[in-house]
């Protein structure tokens, strides 16, 4: 940006109203005769209005938690076989005339096998915690309630590395899904909690036998 050699460094202060009254009056007179300043003033003039939209307390703006990226990639990785199944189906339609019925059934069976795992889950949840713990949970209905398949990484902070999973019911009850160990911070476990779909929206992992501190938590995505 070109800058006026005599008054360039005052333009910003002028636009912000940070000049003393006599300086501001002199600047106003200067701008009327200066091509550079009069050209640059409008882009500076809009700044006070833009600054008014934020509160300095909001700077820097919130950053997404680090585990969100991994949880997203986990989610996509899980969905990938399903997509493969869909493509299989499309191809099958194209070749339908030529293919024997048996082959078509085999492809259909493949689709069911590939997508079956995910079809059963009524919800999933990404969990994260302040110290970098993160997990992915898949929730399925079983006669006893909900089967929670949990895959956790970098879980730490419980005595003896023993943890407990809780489902927080909509009425505020904490329903335990049971306890598990996470050697080296890693765990891949299947637990059962006595809650059903729609009865809860949050999952929390704590040290075993206590409700605090929450080492990681997550919201269900139905």
């Amino acid at each position, binding site marked *: *940006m070109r800058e006026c050699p005599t008054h*360039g*460094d*005052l*333009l*910003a*202060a002028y*636009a*912000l*109203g*940070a*000049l*003393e009254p006599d300086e501001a009056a002199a600047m106003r007179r200067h701008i009327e005769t200066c091509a550079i300043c009069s050209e640059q003033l409008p*882009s*500076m003039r*809009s*700044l*006070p*209005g*833009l*600054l008014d*939209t*934020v509160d*300095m307390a*909001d*700077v*820097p*703006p*919130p*950053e*997404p*938690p680090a585990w*969100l*990226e991994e*949880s*997203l*990639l986990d*989610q*996509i*990785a899980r*969905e*990938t076989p399903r*997509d493969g199944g869909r493509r299989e189906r499309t191809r099958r339609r194209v070749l339908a005339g030529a293919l024997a019925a048996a082959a078509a059934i085999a492809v259909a069976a493949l689709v069911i096998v590939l997508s079956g795992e995910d079809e059963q889950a009524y919800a999933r949840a*990404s969990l*994260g915690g302040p110290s970098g713990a993160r997990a992915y949970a898949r929730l399925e209905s079983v006669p006893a309630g909900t089967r929670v398949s949990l895959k956790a990484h970098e879980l730490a902070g419980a005595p003896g590395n023993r943890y407990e999973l809780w489902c927080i019911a909509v009425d505020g009850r904490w329903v335990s899904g049971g306890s598990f160990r996470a050697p080296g911070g890693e765990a891949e476990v299947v637990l059962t909690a006595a809650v059903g779909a729609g009865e809860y929206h949050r999952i929390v992992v704590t040290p075993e036998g206590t409700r605090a501190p929450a080492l990681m938590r997550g*919201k269900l*995505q139905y």
Partner: protein
Amino acid sequence: MARSDASLLHQLPHDRSGEALRELYRRFGGELFGFACNALGDREAAEEVVQDVFARAWRQAERYDEDRASVRTWLFAIARNRIVDMRRRASARPAVAAWPQEPEEQAQVLEQAVLRWQVAAALARLTPDHREVIRLAHYAGLSLREISEHQGIPLGTVKSRLSYALRSLRLILDEMGVEA
């Protein structure tokens, strides 16, 4: 050379490594999250929105038309729809702040949320000295002379610092496409 946003998006359906998705997330995840936080006032809900935006982008990448919108605009449009859905669901709960009924007003609220995020992000990119001088001159309403006395810095230094600070801010906002 860095790959274009559009080519990354087109690659999504064929990319088994997840690298294209990761790169898109790194380019836009932060601002989408800031925008969603701003619009929803809830970090957990914002996390859900961001995850959903990228999952949808991945599933619907074939629908993206480079000639009609930038990838950024397209992703924000998905985020907007998600936020509107969430606000609609949440409005059943009395605790949530008022949310306009009219789609036009909703669009306005969301535009404001994007702008707020952009200005905050631009301020965050300035040096601490530049941010501070803007805070004193704009938010605290001090004149150059008062800042000089208040901070014990020569008037000439305050003058050039505020000038550099606002010019940098203007440049960053221009880069982000903030025209006003």
